[in-house]
């Protein structure tokens, strides 16, 4: 088959979910018709799925305290054995001449003195600490620093933190804390310039016996801290009197605080606060943690239900949904894994701002962890417009067509009708027409919206196809669309005539009113109207008006035209009664057209107008 080589080169990208959407469609289309490529693609997907199902590294088995101790001991042992010298030795080049080696040694000796200063991007005061230590200057990086000076700096920072942040009540905004910290920064600037790591010292202050100081340090770290601060704040969770301040600070810290917040979720009394903090952080990190929590709790509820887990699960789901569109994928995955009921997940997605768009963004990508049927269910429920191209593609695969059509039929969207119109062109018939009928029954406005859009865009070809499609469907809700098409000069006279006549069959009384309003507009075609068959279209309109709304509406429509005598009106009504009695509409269209010529033919109109 043509293009196999190129298509196969796309498979790795498709498997990684990095293939652009247009190529993705082409790949899907190709593999649907090429057994070899399909086999290769399916094998690649199956392999990827198998890899994703490999067990995760058991990180939870790590005892970091023990490991840190073991590493410390191993370092001591190596240092005693003289390891640093060995580790620092540069790799020697084989075959260097002695003189070059001697020069290199000299260069290395000089270089060693400059080495610390050359270290990239590290504050000079800190990077040169070893040099300073050798010269006897006490700086913050100096291992032999004067303990008294260190305590003094620590006390200063503690006092400034307490003065700046100690009186701030819980729940103040981050911007208020920022304002206070601007003053604090000014006051500790000399220390920071001297190389004192203020954040690092604040981390130490979390262990302060004075709870107010420790809380002020937590608040400071929430705004100015980093990943290391998150570790310190995580430890602070173990101090009951400091735990709430630590949770708030971790929330302020943003994504780096999320894993510590996950720990707080399991601590009695902190769960609600930690959930609030996670929602405040939002983004992928918070979503990951909440997804894991929902998964664990959902599994417990499913296997060994207990009241605490049952009470907890809705809270967690609500928090996850509050994290925004990023949570939608997680909610669906949880359902796909069986850890969250479908209705709960969908209910949560409904509450997510932009949830439908998020569902749409999931389709068409290589999803290893979401079941296709669930995704289809979500698309059918939330109707993301962005999923329509994906559904359209699926309509061309006989295995997927039925589900995709059912899904499209649930869209209250004119674009969905447009999709069905295109699918119909490519060969399917009965199921597509059924889907269109369902769609128009649930969303009657979709037909007229699409008609108006096409007419506004002056897309003659598509408007004409829409008419064919609506006539083929015979959907009860398509009267408004048909009347719009009948009154538009974009279509041919024949098409307009058929459209106007069809309103009588599948329209509603209000469609008669629309046609009546349009009768005069048909005349506005002017000199071209006879050639354009204006009187035939008007005749067809009158038939529909009469069929749907009776004599009074017909007479009113004729009256609105102006210049129709009582005799002519009577003849027209007689023709219409005859048409309904005999069902000979084609003949009546002809007869009515003759009656209406006076209005739609400019020459005859002139004669009538000039008559006394």
């Amino acid at each position, binding site marked *: 088959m043509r293009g196999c080589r190129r298509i196969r080169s796309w498979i790795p990208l498709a498997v990684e979910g990095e293939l652009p959407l247009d190529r993705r469609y082409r790949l899907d289309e190709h593999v649907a018709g090429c057994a070899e490529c399909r086999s290769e693609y399916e094998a690649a997907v199956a*392999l990827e799925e198998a890899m994703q199902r490999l067990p995760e590294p058991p990180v939870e088995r790590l005892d970091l305290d023990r490991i840190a101790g073991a590493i410390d001991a*191993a370092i001591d042992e190596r240092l005693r054995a003289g390891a640093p010298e060995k580790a620092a030795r540069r790799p020697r080049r084989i075959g260097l001449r002695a003189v070059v080696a001697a020069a290199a040694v000299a260069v290395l000796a000089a270089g060693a003195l400059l080495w610390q200063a050359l270290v990239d991007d590290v504050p000079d005061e800190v990077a040169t600490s070893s040099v300073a230590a050798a010269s006897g200057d006490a700086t913050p990086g100096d291992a032999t620093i004067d303990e008294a000076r260190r305590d003094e700096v620590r006390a200063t920072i503690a006092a400034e933190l307490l003065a700046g942040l100690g009186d701030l009540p819980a729940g103040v905004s981050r911007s208020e804390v920022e304002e206070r910290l601007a003053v604090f920064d000014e006051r500790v600037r000399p220390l920071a310039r001297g190389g004192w790591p203020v954040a690092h010292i604040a981390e130490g202050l979390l262990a302060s016996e004075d709870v107010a100081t420790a809380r002020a340090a937590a608040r400071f770290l929430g705004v100015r801290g980093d990943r290391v601060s998150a570790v310190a704040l995580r430890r602070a969770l173990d101090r009951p009197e400091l735990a709430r301040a630590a949770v708030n600070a971790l929330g302020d810290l943003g994504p780096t605080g999320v894993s510590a917040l996950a720990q707080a979720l399991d601590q009695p009394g902190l769960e609600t606060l930690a959930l609030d903090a996670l929602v405040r952080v939002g983004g992928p990190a918070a979503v990951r943690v909440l997804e894991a929590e929902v998964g664990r709790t959902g599994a417990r509820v499913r296997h060994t239900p207990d009241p605490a887990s049952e009470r907890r699960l809705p809270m967690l789901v609500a928090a996850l949904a509050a994290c925004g569109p990023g949570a939608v994928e997680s909610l669906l995955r949880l359902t796909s894994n069986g850890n969250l009921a479908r209705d709960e997940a969908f209910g949560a997605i409904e509450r997510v701002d932009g949830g439908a768009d998020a569902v749409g963004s999931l389709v068409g990508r290589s999803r290893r962890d979401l079941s296709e049927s669930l995704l289809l269910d979500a698309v059918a429920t939330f109707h993301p417009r962005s999923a329509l191209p994906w559904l359209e593609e699926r309509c061309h695969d006989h295995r997927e067509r039925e589900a995709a059509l059912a899904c499209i039929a649930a869209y209250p969207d004119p674009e969905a009708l447009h999709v069905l119109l295109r699918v119909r062109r490519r060969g399917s018939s009965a199921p597509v027409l059924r889907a269109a009928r369902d769609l128009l029954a649930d969303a009657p406005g979709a037909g007229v919206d699409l008609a108006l859009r096409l007419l506004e865009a002056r897309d003659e070809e598509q408007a004409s196809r829409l008419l064919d499609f609506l006539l083929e469907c015979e959907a009860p809700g398509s009267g408004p669309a048909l009347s719009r098409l009948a009154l538009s000069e974009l279509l041919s006279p024949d098409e307009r005539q058929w459209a106007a006549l069809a309103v009588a069959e599948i329209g509603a009384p209000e469609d008669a009113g629309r046609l009546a309003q349009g009768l005069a507009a048909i005349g506005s075609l002017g000199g071209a109207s006879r050639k354009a068959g204006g009187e035939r279209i008007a005749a067809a309109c009158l038939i529909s008006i009469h069929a749907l709304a009776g004599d009074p509406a017909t007479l009113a429509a004729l009256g609105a035209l102006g210049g129709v005598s009582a005799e002519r009106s009577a003849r027209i009504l007689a023709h219409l009664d005859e048409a309904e009695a005999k069902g000979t509409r084609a003949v009546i269209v002809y007869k009515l057209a003759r009656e209406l010529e006076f209005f739609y033919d400019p020459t005859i109109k002139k004669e009538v107008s000039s008559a006394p």
Partner: protein
Amino acid sequence: MAGSVDEKVLIARARAGDRAAFDHLVREHFPRVYAVAFRLVGNHEDAEDLAQECMVRGYLSLRWYRGSGAFSSWLYRIVVHLAHDRHRSAERNHPMAGYPEEPVVERGPVHELGRKELNLALLDSIRKLPDSLRTALVLRTLEGMDYAAIADATGFTATTIRTQVMKARRALLRLMQPYFQGSTR
């Protein structure tokens, strides 16, 4: 990409002999280093050993860390080298240990195999890959690292890594072909 300012300060302090600062770094980076090691060696005990050794060597070699890339990537590079050494050493001592020529399970479509058996066969096939391909595949597919980060950790360019991942997938597919024949999505 270099780390945050505080991480740089911690690294500088650790380099100057501050063991508490290095302790912070260990607690921060050990789990990921361990995860990478686990993916490469396939069992908890060896992975923990490797990750510990990586941290010890990291401390003793800190002066060689120039700060131009992420500290984590520098640690990954150490652990990847350690894993390769261990792999080579295992092959020298027991050339066939752990790598049966034929998978121990009866072959057939994926859905007919138990999940555990399939995992074993897959891990076995991953271990059969050449070091460079295995590392690229593991870091990309199982650890979810982006190509630039893998390039940092292995010393290859991102383009080379992309090619290695692609080759690894193909090779793995060949090794696992009997299991995926006739499989459907």
